[in-house]
């Protein structure tokens, strides 16, 4: 900062030298300025420093707190002395500066005076010269003139010399001033350095002093606190000792007193006990007397009080009941209202639902009618189609047979036999049903694969009477008592529980026995695929199965009259013996057989139900029928036909060749004939000639 300030000033110093005199005043002011410039730089330092000191002081003060508000004199003195040391330089510089300014002013004044004096003298001389010029014009003699001129020249020289001298002096002064300026600058830098040094010293010494002060304060504080601590401790100990002694004294006193009191109390206790005993005996006697009296009284009173009590109670309860009754009535009214509204609603709903139901039934009947109509129409159409196609096919068969017979008879010369064709006699739509019947006549009446036609249904029904009768029997057995049914079901559940999942069983444990069976049964039936309505059937079957088994075994083992007895017993008490009859081990096979049968019967019944409308035809039979038609000409025959055709083709080719050769032979014969005629002619001529 200072360097940068100094540099330009030093730099423009030389240029100052060449300034003319007028610039001198300016130059001097320049010099003036340069000094304060540095002062300006100095000031902030100082001020800052002082501020720092003050701050430090304040901090110190705050640290010391309220007890020591005033700084120790030493620090204050230090502060003051050191700052004065620093500021001394500044004031000295100020003084010097003011002195210099005064000197400059003085010098300027002297210079001005001198210049004025010079001006005056030079003006005098100049006037003399000008006078000389006017005189010289009057002179006519050249010598005089020459003399006058010389004189004038001397005067001029004098003036010039004077001026030169003056200029030299001034320049000298300027040089001196410059030198002084440089010297001043140097001095000022030195002063600045000194000032900085002192400031640093000040800071250092102050810091040191403050530190010392601080340590001292700390020491004093610690000492004080130590002293106080020891004092307090001592006091504390003394107090404690006194207290202990007092306490001990009191303790002994108290023990003595306690003993005394104990004695007194013991005596008193004995006294009081004795007195008490006496009083007690007296009281006892009196009490007995009183009791006797009171008993008599109580008996009298009791009856009265009891009745009164009862009345009060009953009254109380009556009111209670009344209030409750009213509440109940209200509730009743509410409930009845609700019930009425609910009933109305439900009746409405039921009416609506029944209407809906009727409508649905009507719809259903309508659809059934339509279905029947369509079925009949379909059947008729099918019949017609069948007849038509059958007729066509038969014609075709006839033609094929015809062709075959022709081939056999005419071409091959083999005797032809008409193959056996039973179907040819058949005609009409009945044909297809009869064919399977003819085919499967000896078969069992498990007619599930037969096609149903309304006309034949009755027969089939008759045939499936076995099943029907079975179901009928089942129906009859539906009337089994509910109890038996229940028991059978329970048994079933127990035995067939392996069919159910473990988790389900676990979940069911908390439920009651009945609930368990119900849920179990539900799951069992669903997994077996048995519907609920089949349950009685199942029960009956199971019972029956058992009977059968036993009969079988009885038949095998012993045919004694026990069986009759047993049968009678069973008939009489079917319910009681059920559980014993049904051997748990038999349940599973019985179930199996039932399921088998049940499935079969269901299938058949389903078919019965559905076949009325569905023309479920057996395409395989149809195919066989049509196949039989198609295979009227057997394979061998066909092969025969092929070979015959081949041969015939060959034969035809040969015939074609022959037919091609026929005109040639004819032409040749013609030629031959002509040639012969020619020969004959020639021969005739020759013979004529000869002749």
């Amino acid at each position: 900062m200072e360097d940068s300030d100094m540099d330009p000033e030093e730099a423009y110093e030389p240029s100052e030298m060449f300034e003319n005199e007028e610039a001198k005043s300016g130059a001097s002011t320049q010099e003036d300025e340069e000094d304060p410039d540095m002062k300006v730089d100095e000031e902030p330092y100082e001020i800052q420093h002082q501020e720092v000191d003050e701050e430090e002081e304040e901090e110190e003060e705050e640290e010391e707190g309220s007890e020591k508000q005033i700084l120790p004199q030493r620090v204050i003195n230090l502060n003051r002395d050191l700052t004065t040391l620093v500021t001394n330089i500044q004031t000295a510089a100020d003084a010097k500066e003011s002195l210099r300014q005064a000197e400059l002013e003085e010098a300027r004044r002297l210079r001005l005076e001198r210049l004025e004096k010079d001006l005056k003298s030079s003006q005098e001389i100049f006037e003399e010269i000008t006078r000389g010029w006017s005189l010289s014009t009057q002179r006519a003699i050249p010598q005089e003139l020459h003399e006058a001129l010389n004189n004038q020249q001397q005067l001029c020289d004098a003036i010039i010399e004077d001026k030169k001298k003056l200029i030299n002096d001034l320049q000298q002064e300027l040089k001196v001033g410059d030198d002084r300026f440089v010297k001043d600058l140097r001095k000022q830098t030195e002063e600045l350095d000194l000032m900085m040094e002192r400031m640093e010293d000040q800071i250092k010494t102050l810091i040191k002093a403050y530190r010392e002060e601080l340590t001292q304060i700390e020491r004093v504080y610690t000492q004080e606190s130590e002293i106080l601590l020891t004092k307090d401790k001592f006091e504390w100990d003394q107090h404690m000792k006194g207290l202990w002694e007092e306490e001990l004294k009191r303790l002994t006193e108290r023990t003595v007193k306690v003993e005394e009191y104990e004695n007194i109390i013991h005596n008193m206790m004995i006294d009081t006990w004795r007195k008490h005993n006496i009083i007690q005996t007296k009281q006892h006697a009196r009490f007995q007397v009183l009791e006797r009296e009171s008993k008599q009284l109580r008996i009298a009173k009791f009856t009265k009080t009891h009745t009164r009590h009862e009345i009060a109670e009953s009254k109380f309860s009556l009111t209670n009941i009344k209030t409750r009754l009213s509440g109940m009535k209200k509730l009743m009214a509410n409930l009845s209202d609700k019930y009425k509204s609910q009933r109305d609603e439900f009746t409405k709903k039921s009416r609506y639902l029944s209407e809906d139901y009727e409508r649905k039934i009507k719809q259903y009947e309508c659809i059934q009618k339509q279905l029947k109509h369509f079925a009949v129409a379909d059947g008729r159409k099918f019949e017609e189609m069948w007849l038509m196609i059958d007729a066509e096919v038969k014609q075709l068969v006839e033609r094929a047979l015809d062709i075959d017979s022709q081939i056999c008879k005419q071409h091959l010369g083999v005797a032809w036999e008409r193959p056996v064709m039973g179907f040819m006699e058949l005609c009409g739509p009945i044909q297809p049903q009869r064919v399977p019947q003819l085919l499967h006549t000896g078969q069992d009446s498990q007619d599930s694969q037969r096609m149903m036609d309304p006309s034949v249904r009755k027969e089939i029904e008759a045939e499936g009477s076995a099943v029907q009768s079975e179901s009928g029997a089942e129906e009859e057995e539906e009337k089994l008592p509910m109890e038996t049914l229940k028991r059978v079901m329970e048994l079933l559940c127990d035995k067939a529980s392996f069919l159910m999942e473990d988790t389900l069983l676990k979940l069911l444990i908390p439920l009651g026995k009945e609930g368990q069976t119900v849920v179990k049964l539900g799951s069992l039936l669903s997994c077996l695929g048995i519907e609920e309505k089949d349950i009685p059937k199942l029960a009956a079957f199971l019972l029956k199965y058992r009977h059968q088994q036993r009969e079988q075994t009885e038949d095998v083992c012993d045919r004694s009259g026990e069986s009759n007895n047993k049968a009678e017993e069973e008939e009489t008490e079917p319910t009681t013996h059920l559980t014993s009859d049904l051997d748990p081990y038999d349940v599973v096979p019985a179930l199996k057989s039932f399921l088998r049968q049940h499935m079969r019967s269901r299938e058949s019944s389903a078919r019965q139900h559905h076949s009325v409308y569905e023309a479920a035809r057996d395409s395989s039979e149809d195919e066989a029928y049509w196949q039989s038609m198609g295979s009227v000409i057997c394979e061998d025959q066909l092969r025969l036909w092929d070979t015959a055709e081949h041969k015939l083709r060959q034969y035809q080719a040969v015939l074609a060749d022959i037919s091609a050769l026929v005109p040639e032979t004819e032409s040749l014969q013609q030629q031959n004939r002509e040639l012969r005629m020619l020969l004959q002619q020639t021969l005739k001529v020759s013979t004529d000639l000869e002749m």
Partner: protein
Amino acid sequence: MLLNQGFMNPAAMSRSPNPPVAADPRQLRRIIAEDPHWFLNTVPSLSNLCLQSIVNHFEERPIWEDLSPVHKDFVQERLSTSMPLHVTANLIHDGVYWKRCCEKWGGIRDLTHYGNSWKRMFFEKHMENMIELFIPDVTEPKTFVKMVPLCKDYIKRLNISQLLPPVTEPQKEEEEEEEYGSELVIENEDGPSMDHFDFNIMLAKLTNLEEFHVVYRVKQCGLNFKCKMLEMTHRDCESLAKAVKSCKTLKILRLNLSHMEDTKCRLLVKYLLDHPSLRELDLSHNLIGDKGARAIGKLLNRSSLETLNLCGNNIGGPGAKALAHALSMNSTLLSLNLRLNRVRDEGGQAIGKALLNNNTLLLLHLGANEVTWPSAIALSKVLVQRSTLKSLNLSCNNLGVDGGKALEEAMSNNSSLTECDIRLTEVEEQSASFVNQVVWTNQSLEQRRHARERKTKKTSTAVY
């Protein structure tokens, strides 16, 4: 892979049938860039990548207000310091970014001088730099016009340590003819003007400016020195005065070392009259004479100046009288510095008389003013009768023994003066030491009073 390596380097293949993986040059080569945020393992998080892209495209799309504080810090740390100011100036608040700008600009100063604001530091520096390197008629004033609205909210102080004059030297003109074109030469032929930067352009627009320091000089001019370089011209003075007048927030004006004469001083004062906020005026080390002092005296009573520094001027007795007259009617001035003037007894006595009617002045500096004992007597009267003055400096004046005695007597009846400098005043040792003694006791008294005040303040604050 194996085949490929074998193909590239059959020798390695022959040496070892199964060359190590590290032999792959791509895996051996690992450059850890000189980037402190580089990590070997972690992929930078998406948010960081986004922020990075914001930073990269900040100039086109400055996204700032929507960021969370943490992300703002991230952006501040990475934003380029060469970002144009019109983007960043009013967007980015004070913080790391401006610190980085200052660092780039170089020469970080004490932050406490800038109200702990990096942004303020940066903008003040920036503006000062621009003004200090402004060359009239060469630099475009438009740049200032653009800059001012950006930084007007942040500049509180301008400390301009140099003002360059226009290029006028004829020998230079020839050289610069090619550079600057012929227009400049024609202008200069009309009459060489030495006007400097015109503060009118911007001063009125800096709405937060409080301190303004100007020095009309050229730093490090070297051998090109001319006396004119260190002067302010008449027109400079007028423009500056107008500018200061237009700046209604200015509190402190310092105009040092600028060769200001009476006429310019009067011109300046004319514009400063009735300034609403000016508190401190520093015209030290100029060439103000009596007429200028008279003008300033007029200013004293037509403004609310609290501090006046006229040290190192050329004020003589009449000027000091004028100032004293103003003082006697003034009730705002707290500090008056007339160091290194030529007040003499005429002025000193006048000031002493004036202070008898003044109840506000705390600090008076009359050091090195060729004052002698009559003024000392006048001032000692003040010390006896008034207890407002706290600091008195009469150093480097020839007060003499009589003056010293007068002061000694006065001090024995005074308990308010806490600073009194009478060094190098030809005062007797005895009286000087007595005066110092009294001053010290006054200081200690003052400290005690301060301590007590502080205590009461503390207790009062504790009560509330």
